[in-house]
């Protein structure tokens, strides 16, 4: 719920700054490891958007896959499941490069 509130305040701030009448769509990117459940975020956002410029806005959540890189051999690694070692060279020197995103990409408004 606090993530939905932060999201709504960003949307309303942008809507005010661009002086739009109403927001029709809010596009959000959420990484697979961002600890955010899309359906819960939608549920909370829909509850609190009532009575605001974003009352009719559809929340479009794009889930970003978890990707990592191995610093030893340079392989890129699918990290959808927790990965503890590089599947190519078995090095443990791996790092998550994407999957923790949580941001408002763009909004559509009239």
């Amino acid at each position, binding site marked *: 719920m606090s993530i939905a509130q*932060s999201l709504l305040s960003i949307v309303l701030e942008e809507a005010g700054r661009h002086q739009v009448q109403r927001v029709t769509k809010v596009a959000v990117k959420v990484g697979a490891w961002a600890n955010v459940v899309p359906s819960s975020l939608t549920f909370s956002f829909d509850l609190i958007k009532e009575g605001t410029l974003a009352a009719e806005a559809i929340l479009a959540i794009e889930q970003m896959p978890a990707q990592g890189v191995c610093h030893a051999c340079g392989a890129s690694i699918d990290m959808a499941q927790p990965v503890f070692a590089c599947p190519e060279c078995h090095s443990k020197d791996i790092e998550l490069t994407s999957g923790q995103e949580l941001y408002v*990409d763009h909004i559509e408004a*009239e």
Partner: protein
Amino acid sequence: MADINVGRNILEANERLAAEHRRRFAQAGVKVLNLISSPGAGKTSLLEQTLSRLAGRLRCAVIEGDIQTDEDARRVAACGVRAVQIETQGACHLDGAMLAQALEPLDLAALDLLIIENVGNLVCPVDFDLGEDLKVAVLSVAEGDDKPSKYPALFREAGVLLVNKIDLLPYVSCDLERIHRTCRALNPKQVAFDVSCKTGEGLPAWVDWLESWVKG
């Protein structure tokens, strides 16, 4: 019809506050811990044990986060340590705005160590940076050895892992080595201690480490 590019982090408000708090802590020369675990892992017992052992060694204060009641703040205050309670009224984690209020009555410059006990939860507290120097994960053996792989975010970000209630090992099916193996894989730099707040086992090593970390 307008398409507005935004590109803003949803948690930016919290991250701004975290950066501000981090600056304040550094300026005051106080080290800050963010203590995170599930409910019942023994965070408050650990605080009681840690603070009584640190008496006369470090000047400490505690911020207690709970959904309701000030019971934990009273337990900590009974150890002779200043404790400020945050009742989140439903929120499952602490955020920068709640912390800002709790910091008001504290004289940070008069402290060596501030410990923030987060709301019992293995998920949400990890997303909300409080400006701390170190996250400490507490896991009790009764919760099961699968927790680090099921909740990897906390165990990846925690600089210290405390495995608590090791006095219960004979009674629960928990593979202690599996916990350490998973956590080492998630964060090879993590420092780990096995402790029991009931018997005191392992606590001196943890408290000595903490003291030298604060002074170092």
